[in-house]
Every structure is written in C-alpha cells, then in structure tokens.
C-alpha cells in the first residue's frame, strides 16, 4: 500500500496540490445528446435499429406473434445450416419455448447451466453453430444490443459460435448509447455490475489487410437480432 500511496502522492505533487479523495465529476446542465431523437416514437426507434444493423450486414428481424418467431427461427436454422445450438439459461428464453422450437427442427441444444463444468460448456459453445441470448436493451442509433453476462448467462454464448442470435423486445429499443450507460450506472449504484457487460453491434470485422473488409475474424460472423413486437 505504501507504494501505491507514494505513486498517487507524486501525482498530487506534480499537480501542485495536496492529495484528493472521492472527487466526483460535476453535473452538467446540458449535454450534446439532449436533443437527439427527441421527437422519435417507439416505431421510429425500431426502424432505425433495423436500418443500422442491416447496414452492418447484421440481420434484424421483427416478429409480431409466436408463429412468426417460430418461422423466423426455422428460417435461420435452414439458412445457417444449424445443427447445434447453445442457449443462455434464461427465463425469457424459456417463456418463448426457444429450446423446444430448436429441438423440434432437429437441432441439438445445450443450455448454459452454471451447474455444469466450464470445459463442457465452453467446449460445446466452441463447436456450436449458433448461440442465443436475450438482450437487455437495443440501441437504435447503432443497431447494438446490450448483454449482462453472469452465472447462467455465459459470455461464450454470444462469442464462440459462428452465428449469434439475440432476442430483444421492441420496447427495450432505446435511442442511443446514452440510455445504456445510464442503465449500467444505475445497476452499479444498486445491485452491482456483473463481471462482464457486452455491447454488441453486428458481426465481428476487420480491415487490417489492405483495408479490405473481412467479416467474422474472431467473433461470430453472422448476427441476428430478433425483435419481439408483441
């Protein structure tokens, strides 16, 4: 600890003053983002979300009833040639009977049950064709989804498979990242943050070789966001 205090004291010395503790950022009266999307309706956020995710080669699909959801999932299974899937062990996914919907179509499903061993779950996720999670929030401006990863909501589910699918409620689509940061801050101030938070926007990408775009470099190369509009 002595080393740390010495380190910090040297900083205060260089700044020409005594040590400070518990400094907080002053409140700002106005913000650059205050007027953004002020007159938008929920429908507008959805449309913007779809537009922005699509522009990044992500797939944004709206479903208005359980049948459409089932058809959409079937469509994904066929298009992406899905044989195996890994799912979060999550109430809302269970309410949608997602596991059944997949199993019925011949997909071998594993659920990220935190009672199981890491090697088993990570190993499966690594080989799985698709990973499904629920998303806490969507961001219209960028086509992003917000995930809190902990316990049965494994990090690897949205990371290791070659396809990633998020399920998002239409009413959870907010204008922009301001909303996500506000929610994260509130979460920290109340129940605390999980060990990993993800803001995911479309597929993995890189332009490192001659500025030529490659999709799916390390993370999933195909992303679906299924928006529940019911």
């Amino acid at each position: 600890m002595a080393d740390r205090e010495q380190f910090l004291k040297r900083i205060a010395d260089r700044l020409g003053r005594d040590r400070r503790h518990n400094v907080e950022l002053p409140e700002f009266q106005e913000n650059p983002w205050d007027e953004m999307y002020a007159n938008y309706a929920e429908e507008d956020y959805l449309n913007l979300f779809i537009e922005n995710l699509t522009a990044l080669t992500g797939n944004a699909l709206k479903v208005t009833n359980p049948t459409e959801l089932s058809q959409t999932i079937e469509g994904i299974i066929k298009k992406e040639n899905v044989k195996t899937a890994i799912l979060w062990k999550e109430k809302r996914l269970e309410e949608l009977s997602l596991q059944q919907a997949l199993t019925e179509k011949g997909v071998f499903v594993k659920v990220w049950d935190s009672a199981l061993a890491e090697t088993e779950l990570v190993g499966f996720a690594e080989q799985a064709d698709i990973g499904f999670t629920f998303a806490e929030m969507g961001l219209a401006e960028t086509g992003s989804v917000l995930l809190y990863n902990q316990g049965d909501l494994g990090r690897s589910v949205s990371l290791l498979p070659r396809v990633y699918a998020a399920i998002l409620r239409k009413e959870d689509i907010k204008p922009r990242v301001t909303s996500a940061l506000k929610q994260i801050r509130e979460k920290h101030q109340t129940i605390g943050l999980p060990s990993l938070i993800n803001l995911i926007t479309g597929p993995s990408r890189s332009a490192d070789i001659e500025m030529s775009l490659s999709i799916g470099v390390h993370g999933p190369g195909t992303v679906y966001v299924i928006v529940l509009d019911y």
Partner: protein
Amino acid sequence: MSKNQTAFQERVDKSLNDDFLRKALVAAQEKLRNGKKEQSEILGNWENWRKRAEQIRQHTIENLDSYLEQFALNAEKQGAKVFFATDKTEAVEYIKSLAIQKKAKSIVKSKSMVSEEIHLNQALESAGIEVVETDLGEYIIQLAKETPSHIIVPAIHKTKEQVAELFSKVAGEELPADPQELAKFARKVLREKFLQADIGVSGANFAVAESGSIVLFSNEGNARLTTTLPKTHVVTMGMERIVPNWEALDSLLSLLPRSATGQKITSYVTGVTGPKRVGDVDGPEEMHIVIIDNGRLKILGTEYQDILHCIRCGACLNHCPVYRHIGGHAYGSVYPGPIGSVLTPLLNGLDEWKELPYASSLCGACSETCPVGIPLDNYLVKLRRDVVETGRASKLEKIAFQAFGFATGNPSFYKLGVNMADSALKPFAKGERYLVKAPFVLKNWTKVKDLPMPPKLSFRQWWAKEGEKQDGR
C-alpha cells in the same frame, strides 16, 4: 548530424521510396478521414461533443490521483488485483513473475499500445513463454517481426501478398493472397491459441473509476476472447486512461470510433468488472490490472499536460500530410504521427527524439481534428523551443536565428538584407526568372523546386521610388 537524425532520415527515405506504402497510406487516409467527416456531420454539433470530451478528460487528469485511487479500490472490491508500476521495469517484472508463477506456457494478447511501450512481449519471450498477438494487424506484424505503423491499422504497410507469405509459413502450405481467406485462416489458428492460452493480456481503452471496470473497444472480438478464455487476465493500462463514471464515457464512446474509422461504434464494447464471480462459468479466475506511469508523471504539471487527454483514436495520423507520405515506421517510435511526435520526446526525452517535433509543416490539421482538443501543433512548436533552449539546436542554426532576431529588431539592417537579396542571388540565376540551383541552405529548395529570382526593386524600394507619391501628395 546526430546518429538519430541519420537514422530518421534513412527511415524517411525508405518510406518515401516505398510505392505500395505510399498508395496504401493515401487510400487509408481517404477512407478514414472521409469516414470521420461523414459521421461527424451525421452526429451534428461536433464541437459541443468535442468540448464535452475535453472537459471530461481535463477534469480527470486534474484529479488523477483521486480517480486512480477510487478505481483501484473498486476494482479490488470486485476481486481484481491492482499494481501501480512506475516504469517499464516494474511493469514487466510484475507480469513476468506472475507468468512464471502460473507456469504459463502461452499468452494471448489483444491490442495494447502501452504494452509495446514497455516491451512486454520480448521480456516474456525471453522467459520462454509464447506470446501471440491476436489482433489481426498485430498478428501480421508479429509474424513479420515488425512494429505497428498505425495505431488503428497496424499492418497498413503490408501487401496482401506479403501477408499470404507470412501466413503460408504458419500454415505449412501456400495460402491465396485474398484478405478474406487470410482472415479465415487467422481466425482458425488464433482460436486454438485462445483456447490453450494460460494468460490473456489486454489493454484498456478506458478504466471506469466508480466501479473499477475496464472498457475495451474492439471490432474483431479478440479482446473478448482474451478476457474470457484464459484463466488469468492481465490488463496493461496507461495511468491516464481513467474515466470518472459510466455516464462520462458517453462523449468518449461517441467520439472515438467516429474519429478513428468513421464507425458509429465498434462491433464490441466490453466492460470487465473483476474476474469471474462465484456462479460464473467462463471467465478468468484472476484479474491483474497493471497501471503504468512510464514517463506520464513528469508530463503532469507542465504546459504539455493536455497531451494526456489522448484517447488513442488515431485521427491525427489520419489527417496528417506528413504521415500520409512517410507512414508510421519512419517515426521510429511506438506512437507515430502528430501524437507520437509530441508524446515520444515527452516520455522518453529529447536526446533521442529531437527530430520528431520537426517532422511537421505545422499545418494544424491534427489539432483541428483531435476529438479531445489537444493543441498538437502548438506543442510541436513548444518542443522545438525546448530543443533550442536546452542547447540541442545546431550552432549554425542558432547563429542564423540570432541574426534573424537582430535584423528584425533593427530596421536599417533588415532593409539592407531585403534590398540586397536580388544582387545576392543574381549570380545563381543565370539571367533567368527562376533559379534552379540556389546556394547554401537554399540548395535543398532548388533540388526539387524552382526559386523565383527577386525583382530588381523590393517592395519598399518601389514604394520609396513610386508608390509613396502616387496619389499626388
């Protein structure tokens, strides 16, 4: 000429003669600066955003000790270990000892510029540990045994053929010079490395003080894999990378990707708060955060303090005409371009780096584009002042400018010089309106450009002769 100047000039010459590099740099800048322009127009009121970002960075740096303390305490509350390293030796020793203690055989890294500052890879490799860079561009230059030439696109100087050659050696078979195919290969190879690695080393784009969290921006997903699969996670972060709270991240999160590549946001923004918790399945069991000074401390309290606002977006590189022509390697330092030309001498001293502040025409494009308002071109001039006032300028130059100071302070001498210019240059003009071979220092000019022959009458001579009287008074 000092040894470094020759070395610098050599690197500049090499870059200027590299046709591929020059075309690649023009193309990269075109894409990246147009991207920024487009996004800044879409975002609207860019100046307000910039001002906010600058305010937050300024407040943070001014209260750095408090925020670092807060960050460390909160990170430790979440189970991370925090180590404050004064210099590269302390940082490297901590990480190396940890790796040895863990009996680590393989380490994966996601991009961390400060880790290059401290030469971490070499130290770990010398301890017999395999270190694999996983960012595609960094992986390429690691295989090529080179340093990055751009902050955001480190392998911009490499052709796809060169990359194919490098990857083919790894593959043990010939791979096509196709970027997408090569990226697929990298994914496969590096996925194995991620799964086997004992330690993951990442940087930190930002460290949130209020919750002790690290925030990582990535497009590829390697930062996520690095911080999820290996059992131990090590963070190397410059001590200035702090942000007070999550909401304060807004302007920085909104400006960095737009300034760097013209993206609204990177594919992944990842917030890591401590190692995995009880009940978590995947994630590292241990998290070690190494907070690094390495020369930043001595910049605090100086007129250069605002350089610590830098969020490493690379916009200054993307707008710099000098960088466009010489690329990153010519600078010879971890950080190239305008940021490098200021930061490197400040971190590492003027003895070795006094050429860098002169690698600029002071056009100001860097300062204009910096999303956190760093007066880079002003700092370049001030560093030149430092070179002069610490006796590092050449004697000849000193004499020349002493004469300049004298002449400009003494009109009669000044006039003499002005009025004599034409006679002085006449012998070299050979009767032409333009000189193609001027004497003394001016020969550097005429090597590549014509120099006009001064007219017989200087302006003030014309004024005295005609101009003054023209309106009949």
